[in-house]
């Protein structure tokens, strides 16, 4: 069953990959301005792309259901499962937004991000883990799934915002704006870099075992699966023929995680520089041809609409259900646990977003930048808070 589930996920990955090609084709063929009232109906390749997307979505749902049956609990209890579920919700959110706005450009940008997220999730252990007592509750699926859905819908606003920025920030825009837009694309590169480097070294079966001294002064061993640039506190390399660390981390910081982050940025940087060298263009300019024919106000509306739909859902899952469950499992509905605080930060951020938009007239570009920052906060909460800060929510 677990194997079947994994195969379905892989099938979805392939569906999405092929769908991207067709979304690209749909944009080339389109004549009118997407999003204007005079827009042509979606062309055939757009329809094929959407069909493939829906097939992928169904396949991913199949993954989810079979894994639920196999595990005996909702598969949203570790990093792999949560990130994968988040990717399912993102496709779901895209399908909903597509049904309202029929924008194929949105698909062209959403699916690659979804692919990156699926690949990123599969870098974590895929073992089916039993639930610790705190997670044994029907609130686990209710809280986690609603939160993921809310975050996924909010992420669509990021995609629309990103397209908006790629469309409107051209070579004549202030260098600062161009720089920040490149930064966003660079960060995406870093995630791709992480996935690639992890894949390469896992294929090579790289392992280096270190003996180290933790903050309590105990000696233990640590297995690196990437060459150690950053070594643990008072390291002693036990595996012969492996790279020796260049720097030593203090005991309170988790050397291995920082090492992975460093590797991701190195790989991302190499990737980004290669793109720049080969194409001799800014990364954002590469995508510009795809977004020429979409109306900027239309993108702005998609972005805003996604926040309008996502915000209540996120509030419900990430704060209300979270509080109800915390009251049952942790005895109090609010504990100022880092993950909770970051959910509050996300909520405050989107609240500010809505107020700026409604009252200060922050439409268009300003709104697009905010949508990007909002996604940054969501990703920070998902990745860094879980892996680096960690509190009661640490389940990896």
């Amino acid at each position: 069953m677990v194997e079947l589930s994994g195969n379905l996920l892989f099938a979805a990955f392939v569906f999405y990959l092929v769908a991207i090609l067709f979304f690209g084709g749909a944009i080339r063929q389109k004549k009118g301005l997407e999003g204007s009232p005079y827009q042509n109906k979606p062309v055939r390749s757009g329809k094929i792309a959407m069909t493939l997307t829906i097939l992928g979505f169904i396949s991913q749902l199949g993954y989810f259901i079979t894994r639920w049956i196999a595990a005996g609990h909702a598969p949203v209890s570790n990093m792999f499962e949560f990130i994968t579920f988040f990717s399912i919700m993102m496709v779901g959110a895209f399908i909903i937004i597509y049904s309202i706005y029929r924008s194929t450009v949105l698909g062209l940008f959403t699916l690659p991000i979804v692919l990156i997220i699926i690949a990123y999730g599969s870098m974590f252990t895929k073992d089916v883990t039993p639930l610790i007592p705190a997670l044994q509750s029907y609130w686990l699926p209710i809280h986690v799934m609603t939160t993921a859905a809310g975050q996924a819908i909010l992420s669509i606003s990021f995609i629309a915002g990103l397209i908006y920025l790629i469309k409107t920030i051209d070579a004549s825009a202030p260098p600062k704006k161009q720089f920040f837009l490149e930064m966003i694309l660079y960060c995406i590169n870093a995630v791709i870099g992480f996935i690639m480097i992890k894949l390469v070294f896992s294929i090579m079966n790289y392992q280096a075992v270190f003996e180290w001294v933790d903050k309590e002064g105990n000696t233990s061993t640590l297995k690196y699966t990437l060459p150690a640039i950053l070594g643990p506190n008072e390291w002693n390399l036990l595996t012969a023929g492996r790279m020796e660390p260049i720097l030593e981390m203090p005991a309170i910081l988790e050397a291995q995680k920082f090492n992975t982050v460093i590797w991701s940025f190195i790989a991302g940087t190499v990737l980004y520089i290669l793109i720049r060298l080969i194409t001799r263009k800014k990364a954002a300019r590469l995508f510009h041809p795809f977004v020429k024919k979409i109306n900027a106000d239309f993108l702005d509306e998609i972005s805003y609409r996604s926040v309008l739909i996502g915000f209540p859902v996120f509030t419900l899952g990430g704060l209300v259900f979270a509080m109800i469950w915390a009251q049952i499992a942790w005895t109090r509905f609010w504990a100022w646990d880092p993950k909770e605080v970051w959910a509050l930060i996300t909520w405050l951020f989107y609240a500010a977003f809505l107020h700026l938009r409604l009252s200060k007239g922050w439409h268009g570009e300003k709104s697009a930048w905010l949508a990007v920052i909002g996604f940054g906060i969501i990703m920070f909460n998902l990745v860094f808070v879980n892996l680096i800060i960690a509190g009661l929510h640490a389940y990896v």
Partner: protein
Amino acid sequence: MEKVKCECGHINPHGTILCEACGKILDEKMNQNELLDMRYEGSARRSQTYNKTIIDKVWNFFSSVKVGVTLIVVTLIASIIGTVLPQEGNLSIQIPVNQYYEERYGWFGKIYYTLGFHDLYGSWWYLLLIASIGVSLVICSLDRVIPLYKALKNQKVTRNSGFLKRQRLYSEKQIDNTVGDIEIVKERLTKKRYNVMEENGNLLAEKGRFSRWGPYINHIGLIIFLIGAMLRFAPGFYVNEALWIKEGDTLAIPGTNKEYYLTNHQFILELYDESDGEVYKEALNQKGGVVKNYQSNITLYKAEESLPGEKPKLHKLEDYQIQVNKPLKFDQYAIYQSSYRLNEIAKMTFSLTDKESGQTFGDITIDLTNPEENYDLGNGYHVELMSYFPDFQIVDGEPSTKSSKPVNPAFAFKMVTPDKPQGEVSFAAIQQTIEPMGENKYKMTFKSVDTVNYSGLTVRKDLTLPIIALGGVIFLIGVAQGSFWYHRRIWLKQENGVILLAGHTNKNWYGFAKEIETIVHGTKIPVPVDQTLLKEKKAMEGQGGKSVG
């Protein structure tokens, strides 16, 4: 203050920008060619009208969305700072807090502690921020909702033409004989759930006005939530007590005024193993022991009122198995499984022994939670327990105890026997015996130890929960109302053979434009044009097959 009379005859409050009834511009501040600013319907808001007294100034300060957003952003940044290092409340440490931050995080920790960030969310300034947001919510809402309500209530079907022309969606066309077309449009509008009103051949179609109240309703919810959170500090609303109870004990439940008692029969800790299924095998191999269950089997009693010092009579209420996620609930209390201590030393048994012959003269069993002073063994033998150190250590040559937990118990005995009537003193700790008064004839031989498990329970009563839940529900209703519905209005005016059509919505212009398109489709009534789109459309080549009004 003087009222403003519009040419349509409606009397508007002082400070009105757009006439409540017909929409005529009364206070022209905007460029003539720009679209109207339709926020709050151009109604007279107190904050925009008065600015003289102190009250006006305070009101104007808090009614500003700019101030509100600033407060939100400052709170957001402060909240981020609080997640950099763990908060004091989430730590379980033995050493003093200031020492902890410095030892563990060095100079950074010291600064963090000195600035009070270790308890950031409980600091006066953080609470002040939250309170300011609360005040801002109330004033912002009042400043806007009342005039907005009046403006929407007083609106008329026939609108000023200048008002219509400066709407985002607008078109006009010279048409003769429109009766049939207007009937069709009316029918379609009704079908699309518009509320259609007619006056002298002019139409006002409106739907979803209630979505305009969404923001104010969600603000009410938030205020109720904040009031609920504040009430926690009111006496009687909140109980939060820890109850450590060992297996077999019956104790009064703290925080209940000795009204309730609880017996802990057994604490259970289960780990996952092979019997839990093949699927978990790999994960369990990787991680080792994964806990499956923490559980305390208890019985709950209610105590009859009793005199001080008297042992109360207990009436059994129920047996319950408290697990994580399954608290015991009774009256207004809930008892949670939150912690445990396993195999703690409860009793120790020693034998009084003659060192040379090995002959024993009886055992004493010391109950560590309640040690006796004297243990009589009969036949003239007895042992005095001179002192007891639960967590023995030697500081500056003096024996003392590190804590009150029996981690490393040590005892000073005085063994009184018929041949040593003065008694011999022996100091017994784990794996060592000291005879401070010289060589003894007798010794206390360690025989056995009884261990016991403790359940760490949390007793909680929180009467603010219903208020907080109410606030949350109202908030969600308000947010849904404001986000999922939209307020749409379509005006149709006939003036000297010209049809004017204008539309306004508070969000989702794209969908709205499409909807109007389908409503007027096939009639002579012109499709309204999004006037903000005109510019971009013109910039695009090969566009614009259709006429623009």
